[in-house]
């Protein structure tokens, strides 16, 4: 991607992807550059390839989902397409759409602690992170509850907390507000602002523009192509 500066933290360079057994590519010639500390929003209709693009950014494609992948994805100038998902977990964290497929433990505290424990964070620091994050998302009362018994919105907040506890540089949020009520949405928006102010890089996939209030740059994904959104919908 010759037209992208080296100052980008995440660079997507002419990426195209077609799923196995699919005739049509879901993404075609995608170029994207995200600077450190930027909040980038990607908007598109259902089936436009938003989740596919997120899975490319966090390394799930092409490592875990097969298909015809072309192009390069660079993180701080280093190509990541050959890296495994767990290797990238020290830098990139993702909140997926479905909270049920991200919850593995029977207590919210254990769920939040799982990531930092994997990354060898000292226990005292993990407990401090749990305190801070549950306070930030106002889920202190859920700390010892079983996440499987919570409502969809509460589950999503727990999943977000479990990803925030990783304290990584880049956060990918894949329609994380889809199942959340207005109060929960406001809490997540406040958390995003907080994270942006603390210098985190955030890439948000949404189909609702109102969830992208803190985005520095918005892109539209349609027909497998990514275009900067200039405020005019075609």
């Amino acid at each position, binding site marked *: 991607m010759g037209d992208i500066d080296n100052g980008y933290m995440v660079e997507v360079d002419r990426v195209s992807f077609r799923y196995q057994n699919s005739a049509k590519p879901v993404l075609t010639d995608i170029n994207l550059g995200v600077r450190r500390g930027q909040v980038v929003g990607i908007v598109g209709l259902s089936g436009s390839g938003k989740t596919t693009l997120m899975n490319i950014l*966090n390394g*799930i494609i092409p490592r*875990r989902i097969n298909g015809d992948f072309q192009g390069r994805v660079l993180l701080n100038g280093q190509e990541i397409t050959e890296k*495994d*998902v*767990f*290797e*990238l*977990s*020290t830098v*990139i*964290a*993702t909140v*997926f759409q*479905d909270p*049920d*497929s*991200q919850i*593995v*433990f*029977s*207590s919210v*505290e*254990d769920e939040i*602690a*799982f*990531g*930092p*424990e*994997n*990354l*060898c*964070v*000292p*226990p005292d620091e*993990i*407990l401090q992170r*749990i305190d801070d994050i549950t306070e930030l998302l106002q889920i202190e009362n859920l700390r010892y509850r079983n996440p499987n018994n919570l409502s969809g919105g509460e589950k999503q907040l727990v999943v977000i907390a*479990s*990803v925030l506890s*990783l304290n990584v540089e880049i956060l990918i949020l894949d329609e994380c507000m889809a199942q959340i009520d207005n109060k929960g949405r406001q809490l997540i928006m406040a958390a995003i602002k907080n994270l942006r102010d603390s210098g985190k890089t955030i890439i948000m996939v949404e189909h609702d523009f109102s969830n992208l209030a803190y985005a520095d740059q918005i892109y539209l994904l349609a027909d497998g192509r990514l275009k900067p959104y200039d405020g005019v919908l075609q």
Partner: protein
Amino acid sequence: MSSTVDPRAKLFLVICLSTLGIVFENIWTLLIVLIAELIYAVMLQANVLTAIKKLRKMLYLIIGIVILQSLFIRTGRVLIGFNHIKIITDVGLIKGAGYLLRVMIIFLSGTIIATSDMRELIQGLIQLKLPYDLAFMASVGIKFLPLLMEQLKDTLIAIQLRGIDLNSLKLKQKLEIYAYIFTPVIVNTLTKAKQISISIEARGFRAFNQRTSIKVLKFKALDYALALSSAIVAGVIIIFNWHLLQI
């Protein structure tokens, strides 16, 4: 009491009694193992009644296996026969009852283990030097079964919502419906399992060879007492069984 007991002590108890339940064949020994396990299960506040209710659903299957077991054993006094064909003998029936006791012993072992929080159980296994990957996968495997049941239940509800009353169907039609939903249920469950595996990897699972933990288990006096009593009870049962063999 249950939540304060170290899962390693419970594992030790379960290993002791389940091993005896599998190794010994004498019905009286098995009965004593079952009674001992039942006492421990009640002491550890295991959900025995719920487990029995769940076991009731498999009652026909268990009775069927017990009868089958006794059908294939020809030795002993004939209790039910047809002309010269031995159908059920006393030895066969005792063997079948032994099988039933073994199933109940293993089932009770499960309820005792289930009194521990999954996370504590994993931690216990890790502190027993089991690799974290294996301990975690075992615990996720336990989670996988209810997931499969949930998928099956959801699919059945979806079918009923489309106007099919499963209760009014004949057995053949019911079997056809089950065969029809089998593939989507399995596919959905496998898809969910794949999503879970991806999401845990994205949260650093296997990122390093080591990992830290906010929960470190410590063996307390109560745990030592439970482990010691398990060993003593197991020893007494072994001696009892040995004496039975001498008679």
